[in-house]
Every structure is written in structure tokens, then in C-alpha cells.
């Protein structure tokens, strides 16, 4: 039998990062193929290559037995490949029908739209799929998140796809909707389509997939029949062997005060009853899968998004709903490193100097007038101390590499002499060398008595640099570990919601 898709030896590097070292994926007609791996395992990059959005550096793809090298998503689409992403691509103010046909509207000879035909086709499709609660004339903004996702599915299957790739398709769905999606998937499979099912929910693998491909660190690990494999075996091959920590955190001091404590903290977007305690000199990690809610923790604690309930105690002061704000916190010794470096961290058009000193200006001025000499010399000190590669302090930060930009942000926090550091994805988009430097800086901070909270989707990073780890699943801290007592497998199991009794947080 000719596979629908056979990708082999796919490689892709981005500046400083190898995203995909060896991508392999083979999908047969009439098969649901699970694709699993940790965050950063290379799944998204592989999909992006297959659907024509990213040109690979090396490797080959065969599609329906023919060599295939799509140069654009459109080309892949026209060949019958559909991708349903987690992030929605619908246009909110248009109707379901308009969205399903956007960019490929049916029209008559003079370019006039054939609205009737489009409406009929969409209504028939929605009915066939069993989406009775969605109407073709509904506007997207009036639909719930799960309904919107189902519209994405409808868009993908409007004309029977040959290959359908679904990224975390059940993440936003309730049980009934998940069942519905299962039955739609099985029907497509029985009609001969190949389906790639990317998921973090391992229990789904047994329910829906026929074979499973596991990826780790940008490379193919194995492809197995779903019937022959246990969940634990999958987790093991996703995580591989635990690599021994190269950067040990400094020893904890007994009786160190608690600098950051939260109790009962909840957000409007799905974090529940968060309880965190970080002592002076301690590095605490919060980990979880993308979408588990961890990406919200930092913003919440720093007052960027509002607290719904609970209290946050920082350096002896207690804050409740409405009392946290970035300005207030940064003046009282807290530094937050946002996960989105370009969007929320740096000022790309401004020099390194200004990027570094921006938060410390109150300390560097008298009645608002800057002590520019002192500013310049302290910034230069940090450039040297952190090994920031820049031509000068006056260099526009945009010209620096990701790792050096990240170091500038660390310098920004250190210049304010903060005692609490909330670090979100501290090494995202950073090359290996800079990563080691940044780990060293984090440990220096702790050694000098700061409380450090690291929020990261990178399991190994957390295991390497933290004293203690909190695993978040579905918006809740479900387990807490001492970093030297936990294996990566156990941690990742907790991310997936699997815990032993004794680990309960």
C-alpha cells in the first residue's frame, strides 16, 4: 500500500536553534496516526514543513507516491492537505459560511458570488458532521471557543481532505464534542483519508489512533502500533534518559525567609487555587504543558492580568485583587521577565543602555534628573559581567542575538536590585551557549539571596536549575517535587495528569 504521506530525514534550523534534526512521518490511507512529544520536540515544525509554511533545509516528502515539495500553504491545500491548528484562523465578524469559503469563494463567470450554492454546501456539511448547534449564517463572534474549533474542523473537511492534520484537537472541547470529533475522524478514516492526530492527552491515543510516532529533541524516536504500547512506554520514549544536571543550584540556607507566597490565587482564564512559596535563595520551577495555564502565572503575579481571587504576599506586603500592578511591584523589588521578549520585553528601536536602565530610573535619578554617568557605568558593568555581546552600550538592541537580548533583560532586573525574580521561559529562543550563561546568572541571583520563580515548558531546564518543582495540569498545581528526587518521566506524567498519591501538592 502506498502511504499518503512519507516524510523522511526532514531537517530545519532557525538561527541558533535546530528545530528539527530528523523528522520522519509516514501516514497510510485509512489511518489515524498519533504524533506525540514534549514541547519543543519538533512536532509543529514538522507539520509546518508538510503544510508548506516552512521550507525544510534537508529531507524529502512523498505525497501519494510522488515527490512533494510545497512552496506555500496554498499549494499544500490544493493538493488536499488540511491542517487544523489550535490557534484559530477564523475571521470573527464574518459568518460560518463566509469563513469556510474565505479566499476560495464559489463564483459565477463575472466574479459574482454564488451565495446560494455556498450556503447549501455548508449547511449540508454541518448537518453531516452533526454540528446541529452551529448555523451557517452564525457570525463567529457569537460562537463559543469550542464551537469555533468545530467550525475549523468543518472548514478542513468541507471538501474531503486526503491528509488531515489536527493539532491538539480536543484541547478546547468537552466530552460530548470530543466524542463527536472522534466519530467524524473515524468516518474520514473509513473513507480512506489519512489523519495525523497531535495530542498531549495520552489517553486519547488508545481511543482513536492506529499507530503512534514519538518525537524527542527534534528527532524521530519510534513509530509503534497503538495496540502494542502502554502509556508509560510512550512517556519513556518521549522523555528519553534523564540527563545529569550540569548546573546545580546553590545549596539552600536553613531558615531563609519566604519572599513570595501566594494562596488561593485564581485567574479569569483558568488558573485555580494556586499556592506557591519561594524562599530567599531558592529557585522554584513551575512546569506544565503548553496550554496548562502556566503561561499565565507570571502575568498574574506581576499584575499584568487581573487576579480573580486569593492573596499574593511579596517581601512582606500582602496584595489582593486590584492591588497588583507592574509599576508598584517593580518599585518594590520584583522583576518579571516576560515570555514574549519582542512584544513585551525589549524596546527594539532603543539602545542597550536604555533597555537596561529603564526599570531602575527611579533609583538612578534625583528629582527625576538622571545621573547619566552612574547609569552608563553600571550598565557597562553588567554588559561585562553577563558577557553581553554588543558593540557598545549605545548599540540598538535589535542588532543583538536573542540570547544577548535576554541577558540585557536580566541586567535590567539586576540593576533594580530586585529580590524577587519571576522568570517566564528564560531561555526561549536562546542558543545553547547563552542558555548555560543564563542558568549561571539565575543561580547567582539565588546565591545572593533572591527568590527566583521560573516558569517554563522546558522540563529539562526546570530539572537542571531548580530546587523545587511544581507541576501544573489543567490550571492547578497537582504535584510538587524536590528536583533531585524526581525523574523527568514522573514530572512529565504529572503534566499529563498522572500522579501518585504521595506526590499530591
Amino acid at each position, binding site marked *: 500500500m502506498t502511504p499518503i504521506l512519507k516524510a523522511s530525514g526532514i531537517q530545519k534550523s532557525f538561527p541558533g536553534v535546530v528545530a528539527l534534526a530528523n523528522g520522519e512521518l509516514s501516514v497510510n490511507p485509512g489511518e489515524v496516526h498519533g504524533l506525540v512529544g514534549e514541547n519543543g520536540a519538533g512536532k509543529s515544525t514538522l507539520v509546518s514543513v508538510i503544510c508548506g509554511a516552512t521550507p525544510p533545509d534537508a529531507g524529502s516528502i512523498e505525497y501519494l507516491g510522488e515527490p512533494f515539495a510545497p512552496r506555500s500553504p496554498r499549494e499544500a491545500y490544493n493538493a488536499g492537505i488540511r491542517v487544523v491548528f489550535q490557534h484559530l484562523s477564523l475571521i470573527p465578524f464574518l459568518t460560518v459560511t463566509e469563513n469556510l469559503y474565505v479566499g476560495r469563494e464559489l463564483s459565477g463567470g463575472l466574479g459574482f458570488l454564488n451565495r446560494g450554492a455556498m450556503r447549501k454546501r455548508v449547511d449540508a456539511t454541518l448537518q453531516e458532521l452533526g454540528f446541529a448547534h452551529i448555523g451557517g449564517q452564525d457570525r463567529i463572534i457569537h460562537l463559543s471557543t469550542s464551537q469555533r474549533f468545530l467550525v475549523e474542523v468543518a472548514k478542513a473537511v468541507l471538501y474531503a481532505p486526503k491528509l488531515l492534520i489536527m493539532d491538539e484537537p480536543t484541547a478546547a472541547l468537552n466530552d460530548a464534542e470530543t466524542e463527536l470529533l472522534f466519530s467524524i475522524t473515524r468516518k474520514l478514516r473509513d473513507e480512506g483519508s489519512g489523519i495525523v492526530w497531535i495530542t498531549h492527552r495520552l489517553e486519547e491515543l488508545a481511543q482513536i489512533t492506529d499507530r503512534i510516532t514519538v518525537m524527542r529533541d527534534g528527532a524521530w524516536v519510534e513509530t509503534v502500533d497503538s495496540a502494542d504500547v502502554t502509556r508509560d512506554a510512550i512517556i519513556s520514549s518521549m522523555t528519553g534518559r534523564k540527563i545529569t544536571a550540569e548546573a546545580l543550584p546553590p545549596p539552600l540556607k536553613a531558615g531563609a525567609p519566604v519572599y513570595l507566597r501566594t494562596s488561593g490565587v485564581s485567574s479569569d482564564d483558568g488558573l485555580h487555587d494556586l499556592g506557591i512559596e519561594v524562599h530567599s535563595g531558592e529557585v522554584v520551577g513551575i512546569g506544565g504543558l503548553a496550554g496548562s495555564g502556566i503561561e499565565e502565572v507570571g502575568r498574574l503575579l506581576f499584575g499584568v492580568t487581573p487576579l480573580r481571587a486569593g492573596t499574593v504576599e511579596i517581601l512582606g506586603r500582602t496584595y489582593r485583587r486590584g492591588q497588583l500592578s507592574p509599576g508598584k511591584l517593580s518599585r518594590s523589588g520584583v522583576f518579571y521577565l516576560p515570555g514574549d521578549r519582542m512584544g513585551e520585553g525589549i*524596546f527594539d528601536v532603543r539602545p542597550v543602555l536604555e533597555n537596561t536602565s529603564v526599570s531602575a530610573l527611579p533609583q538612578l*535619578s534625583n528629582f527625576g534628573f538622571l545621573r547619566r554617568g552612574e547609569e552608563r557605568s553600571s550598565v557597562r558593568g553588567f554588559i561585562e559581567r553577563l558577557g553581553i555581546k554588543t558593540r557598545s552600550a549605545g548599540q540598538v538592541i535589535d542588532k543583538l542575538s536573542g540570547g544577548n537580548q535576554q541577558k540585557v533583560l536580566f541586567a535590567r532586573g539586576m540593576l533594580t536590585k530586585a529580590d524577587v525574580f519571576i522568570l517566564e521561559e528564560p531561555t526561549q529562543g536562546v542558543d545553547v551557549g547563552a542558555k548555560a550563561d543564563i542558568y549561571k546568572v539565575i543561580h547567582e541571583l539565588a546565591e545572593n539571596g533572591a527568590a527566583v520563580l521560573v516558569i517554563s515548558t522546558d522540563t529539562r531546564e526546570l530539572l537542571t536549575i531548580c530546587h523545587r518543582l511544581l507541576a501544573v495540569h489543567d490550571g492547578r498545581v497537582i504535584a510538587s517535587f524536590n528536583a533531585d528526587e524526581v525523574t523527568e518521566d514522573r514530572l512529565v506524567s504529572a503534566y499529563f495528569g498522572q500522579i501518585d498519591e504521595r506526590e499530591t501538592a
Partner: protein
Amino acid sequence: MKSTVGTSAAGSSEPRTIQGVTKAGILVFRKTGALLPLFLIMLLYFSFATEFFFTERNFGTVTTQAVYFTIIVIAQAIVMISGGFDLSVGSNVSLTSIITAMVVVTFSGPGGILLAVALGLLTGALVGAANGLIIAIFRVSPLIVTLAMASVVSGIALIITGGGPIFNLPLEFRQALYTGSVLGMPSPWLVALIIIAVAYVVLYWHRFGRNLYAVGGNPQSAHIAGVPVRWTLFLAYTVAGLLVGLAAVLLTARVGSGEPNLGGQLALQSIAAAVLGGISLRGGQGVLWGAILGAIFLIMLRNGLDLSGVSSYMQMVITGMLLVLAVVVDRYMNRN
């Protein structure tokens, strides 16, 4: 920079000087876009095309004209660095002129003049504060807010005067703020120099300036870095309004009447001058002296065109085209 090893002294020094000059040229070009080449072309052209351009008397005329405009361009630059712009500067000039004239006509004597100046400045600042308040609190587009404000403020100016100018300003007012001089320097020149000095200190030696560049560079990053974004935006528009008010008071003394149409094309012209001077429309970029140079350029251009007998209608066409050119150059220079 260390010199390359092995090159002979005679051979290396000259190319390096040229290299240095080229580098400096590139830097200036980066900071102020197409302004310097345009400046040179303009000076060359007018020195051949008109006899009167390079005379001491014309220099005085140009400088005096430039004083008012430079203050307004500095105001515009402050707002643009914060990531916005102010389309209401012209209307603000008109309203401030009316208020100042009314007060100075009503209350005579030095006290009256002081009161007129104070109320004029207050008017300008209030219009700016209204802009700033709406933009900072609701985070709505400065384009719409200041455009609407321009309509409101112009309307008020016309309602107050019924459309006509206010004449019979006391001679002392004109003497103090236009014909008068301090230590041999005409008073408007002195005021402009003080404003430039203060603007320099505030932009580069004060926290406010840094916050302004930060907010304009990336408001979200600024918020997370603890910069008071809303307060900074509010202050930027208020300070700009105050400066516009000051320019309007000086202009009123110069024309000798309160004019409900005194502002004219100032909004567009000031944006054109600022952009020509390298103040980016996307915020967070540009330097004070660039804006000042841009202002002087537009004034000299107008003066030269006047001397060459080009009609003011044609000058409108040229100003508009220059703005488009400046925006395109700005876009091109800051493209990655």
C-alpha cells in the same frame, strides 16, 4: 577601533579619515533621513536662484519666522516620540491667540499682559491635557482624538469671535513679546533658545524623556518594565499643548491681533518638519536637534520659495509632497 596591522602610516590615515567622515555621514543620515541632502540642495538652489537669500537681513527674517515654528515642531516631536501625533496644534494656536488677545485688550497695564500670557499658556495646556487625558485613559487612536479636538477647538475659537479677528492690542504687549529685546537679542529668539535648552534637558537628562522614548518604542514593554505609561502619555500631550500655547502667545504679539485662523496648516507642517528631521511616525525614535533642523528647513524653504515668487498655493503642494517623501524615507530607513 584599532588600526589594521601592517598598513603603512601614509597609506592608512587618509582612507580612514574618509571612512570616518562617511560613517559620520551615514549616522546623520540615519538620524534625520533625507533631511541633510535636501538641505544642501535647497541652499544651493536658492543661492543661485535668488539674490536676497544669503543676506543678513533675510537671515533675521528667517530666524524670527523659525522661532514660532520650531517651538511648535518641538511640541509635535514630543508627542510623536510617545508614539502618537497631534493634529490639533493649529486649532490650539488659534484658540490661544483669541483668549490671549481678549484678555490683553480687557485688562491694561503690565498686570494685564502677564495675565494674558498666563491664560494663553493655560489654554494651550488645557487643550493638550484634554487630548492626553482621552488618549491615556481610553488608549484610543491619537489620529481621531486630536482630529476631533481640532474641530472642537476651532469651533470654540470661531464662536467666541464670531469669525473675525480681535484688534487693538496694546502696544506694550507687542513690545514685550515681539519687538523687545533682552541683552541685544530679540525676545522671541530668547524664548525659543530657552525652550530648546529645557526640552534638551527634559528629553535627555530627565526620567520623563526616557519614559517617553520607552512608551513610544513599545508601550507593552514599557508597562511591564514599570514605566507609568498612561501618566507619561498624558504629560506628553499636556506639555506639547503648553508649548503650542507659548508659540501662540508669541505669534499673537507678532501679528498684533487675535486671529481665529492663526493656526492654519500648522498641524501638517509641523508633522512634516518633524518627520523630515527623523522623528519616526512609529514612535520611540528621533532626536531633538533633528526636529529643530526639520523646522528650520521648512521655514528656509518657504522663505526661499517666497523670494522666488512661488505662490503659497504651490507651496502647499510642495509641503505635502515633502511629507510623503519624508514618510517613505522614514519607512525605508527603519526597515530591517
